[in-house]
């Protein structure tokens, strides 16, 4: 069970959080301008790397804030967590 540091509440057990997948996937400003393939890339394709991964977590049972984390998908070590936009 991972130990995740909420940027506000500090270290809490994994079960207090929900996972939000890859960070940094921004919604296209003008979806209509996109081809179906580009839209599909936004919708479905993911980097899914083996190694360092920027991802989103939500402190669901706590302060309900979303925040970012850099976690290694092989060792599961979390290098850092950070408030979004920081």
């Amino acid at each position: 069970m991972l130990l995740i540091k909420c940027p506000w509440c500090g270290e809490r057990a994994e079960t207090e959080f929900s996972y939000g997948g890859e960070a940094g996937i921004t919604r296209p400003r003008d979806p209509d301008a996109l081809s179906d393939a580009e839209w599909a890339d936004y919708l479905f394709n993911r980097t899914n790397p083996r190694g360092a991964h920027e991802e989103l977590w939500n402190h669901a049972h706590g302060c309900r804030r979303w925040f970012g984390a850099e976690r290694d998908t092989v060792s599961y070590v979390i290098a850092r967590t950070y408030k979004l936009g920081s």
Partner: protein
Amino acid sequence: MSDARTRVEVLAEIGHINLRGDPGRGAFREIAERVLGQPLPITPNTVSEGGHRVCWLGPDEWSVVTAAGDAGVLLEQLQTALAGEHAAVNDLSGGLAVVRISGADSRRLFARGCTLDFHPDKFVPGSCAQAGLAKASVLFIHTGGRDVFDLVVRRSFLDYMVRWLRHAGAELDIEFH
């Protein structure tokens, strides 16, 4: 082990006002503190005690715990005073129940179902924390009294929570009220 029996009781007549706003913007914090007559706790997971008990829930969210009878007035005061700010005030009293757990075994009881560290050096008077307890989400409040804790539970989970406490506390020295 336990120097006093641990008591579990459901408190009646508690009011809860949920307050949202950005303490770093506009006059929100100032107004809120003026109306409440006490500081808003800005440090995560802390409580400010005064006329009310104000618990930090998030960087822009607090729970004002007060007597049920005062909640209505407080709600109006806050809403009126904050009318010009980006803020939200809701009276959640109807949806929340408070279970008071006091006594030496309380921390052990929590440890059965919660991953927080309740060591007396860690969860000190003036602390609060939202967390999972067994399969419900709750707010733990250290009331400041020695080993006296309030557990704020959503009302539809109350029945479950009490059952769970009875079960988890079966080996401990606990009386239920």
